């Protein structure tokens, strides 16, 4: 099986020659054709199109982005710790993906709507969600945990790729509401759908690209290519950079350094503007890295190298923004303040989580249907009576 052989074709009319660079690029390295405004060394880079989009971010704003990322990381680490302590059943870390999530999330307007997988705690933060609510489902108390409409932030979706279609449908609804291309910045809306590199293989994601493209729906597909789908490297999902996927469906696509919060902010802002103004969908590939395990149940030592992890640790999204902040005049006290705030936050998260109590078993019969359902009612009644039968000794005989 010659799975690494690359066909060589002459470029000519009628022949689409895909950019096959991705095949030989080792997983985890950067390519040249990546939008970047801030290097791993924390230096600004000029970009003809995108630099303008971060010009209005003054030092205060940059510090805000730093705070976002730092607090989300602290939250994420605390949740991981809580899982280790047996307080959560499972935790999917967003460690390492803070720039992709905060950068894109901060480009959103209040009226925009977001659909995600299960790892987008940073995006949730930008939507004003009380992150502690995310713990509910990983503690086994709730399948959802928050009021999605209150935050324009949909519940996490665990079936990979499904929500890309929900996002597209929601965007089709926005079109029908007339909330696209009015020019009113308080009215025009768009949707962002976040998913991973692995998700791009699911038929549903491709179908979402079809529907979004042919309807010119105001939706941004934000693919966090964190190099891994559990134990499978991105090369198991695509021979070419994922950014090419969007183009194949007629969707303008952009590849961005996902560990560069400024670049993520800029490209997402542009894509959202296009969507809100009626320009249709955009596909963004944010090249980032899952610095932690897939979830707390995972064991990455089985499938990836320490060297690779080290390589990416050098590209930590928070560290590089810190370097920039320092270079642009932020004092140590700022960072100490964030540190202190993080600790208080973590303590609060811990206490909140521990105080959560299990739902009453009878609630399992709630909300199966919005309207009355005789079978559910009968089973609920049976269960209540059955449970009532257990008193003292009798229980469990």
């Amino acid at each position, binding site marked *: 099986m010659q799975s690494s052989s690359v066909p060589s074709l002459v470029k000519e009319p009628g022949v689409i020659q895909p950019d096959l660079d991705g095949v030989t690029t080792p997983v985890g390295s950067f390519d040249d054709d990546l939008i970047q405004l801030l290097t791993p060394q924390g230096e600004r880079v000029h970009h003809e199109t995108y630099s303008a989009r971060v010009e209005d971010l003054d030092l205060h704003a940059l510090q805000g982005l730093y705070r976002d990322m730092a607090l989300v990381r602290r939250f994420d680490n605390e949740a991981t710790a809580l899982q280790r302590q047996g307080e959560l059943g499972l935790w999917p870390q967003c460690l390492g993906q803070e720039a992709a999530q905060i950068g894109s999330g901060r480009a959103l307007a209040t009226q925009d709507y977001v659909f995600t997988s299960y790892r987008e705690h940073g995006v949730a933060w930008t939507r004003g969600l009380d992150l502690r609510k995310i713990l509910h489902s990983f503690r086994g108390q709730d399948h*959802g945990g928050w009021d999605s409409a209150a935050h324009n932030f949909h519940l996490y979706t665990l079936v990979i790729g499904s929500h890309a279609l929900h996002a597209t449908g929601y965007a089709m609804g926005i079109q029908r509401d007339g909330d696209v291309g009015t020019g009113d910045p308080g009215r025009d809306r768009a949707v962002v759908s976040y998913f991973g590199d692995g998700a791009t293989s699911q038929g549903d994601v491709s179908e979402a690209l079809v529907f979004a493209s042919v309807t010119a729906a105001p939706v941004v597909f934000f693919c966090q290519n964190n190099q891994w789908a559990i134990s499978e490297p991105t090369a198991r999902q695509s021979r070419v950079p994922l950014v090419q996927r969007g183009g194949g469906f007629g969707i303008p696509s952009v590849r961005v350094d996902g560990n560069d919060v400024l670049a993520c902010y800029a490209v997402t802002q542009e894509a959202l503007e296009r969507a809100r103004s009626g320009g249709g969908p955009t596909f963004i590939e944010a090249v980032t890295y899952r610095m932690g395990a897939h979830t707390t149940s995972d064991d990455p030592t089985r499938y990836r190298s320490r060297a690779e992890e080290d390589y990416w640790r050098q590209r930590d999204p928070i560290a590089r923004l810190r370097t920039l902040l320092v270079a642009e005049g932020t004092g140590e006290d700022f960072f100490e303040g964030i540190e202190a705030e993080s600790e208080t936050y973590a303590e609060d998260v811990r206490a909140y989580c521990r105080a959560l109590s299990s739902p009453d078993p009878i609630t399992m019969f709630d909300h199966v249907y919005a309207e009355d359902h005789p079978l559910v009612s009968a089973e609920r009644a049976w269960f209540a009576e059955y449970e009532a039968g257990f008193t003292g000794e009798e229980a469990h005989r």
Partner: protein
Amino acid sequence: MSASAIGTQRITMAKAINLGLRRALERDEKVMLMGQDIGALGGVFRVTDGLQKDFGEERVVDSPLAESGIIGTAIGLALAGYRPVCEIQFDGFIFPGYDQITTQLAKMHYRSRGRLNLPVVIRVPFGGGIGAVEHHSESPEALFAHTPGLRVVSPANPADAFTMIQQAIASPDPVLFFEPKARYWDKADIDVRAAGQALDLGGDTVGLHTARVVTPGTDITVAAYGPTVSTALAAAGVAGQEGTSVEVIDLRSISPIDFDTLIASVRRTGRLVVVHEAPVFFGAGAEIAARVTEHCFYSLQAPVLRVGGFHVPYPVANIEEEYLPNLDRVLHAIDSAMAH
């Protein structure tokens, strides 16, 4: 042409659904139809004939050829406040959308603790008897009834089709709406205006999930839904002439099942035959037999008998009449039950 201006007329089931959809589109601007070829063509069965012309391409949408995409975007539209009615072209083509139905559509209300409703209707022309090729004659209702969160119904005549499609669209829950395609061209007199008004007033109509005693009888109950109701009625006619009084029940709903009506009947007659086209093994008849037996253990004079598809894929058209639970097979089951 407004549906409400029509009055009594003799119409086919296909037309009745068309009028029901039209009324739903008229009454609620959030209602929209989606599916393959439902626009200019009016659907392969012409059930949506004329609707795109009258309501526009935004409300009657020709979708890309992808069932998961249709149902998945319908979920998103429902979250955005719309009431999508999806047409699946044929029963056998619902399966690419099965994941969205089973893991998303059925569970979103529960997942959100009741905060989110998904009032999505999925219309599925189903069943055999039309001489079609593979995948065009299936009866997959059991594959949806087993999943909590879904409602599953099937009208058996034009009047019910007209009413039930509107009730399904009005439901805040997802509804699988199985249309017996072999009955699309059956005609009945319907006073569309009266039926529509009754519906508007929430009055005189039978609930979406209520079974109906179509023919009262005393010796045996025959329960059916969708395409097999007319077979059951025919059997009742023949059996009646031969001295057996058959009570025919049109279940109308497969999830939930109106066991109250069913049990009351069986307590009277003491015998039950269930008829459906789907394979008997793990079919609706199994659930009905199990539950009715549990509740009528001492009234039953004979075991509940099931007449339905065999444990074979839907066969080729030339021999489908032998596969289908036809008049003879229903009569045979009635005889067996009576002889017990």
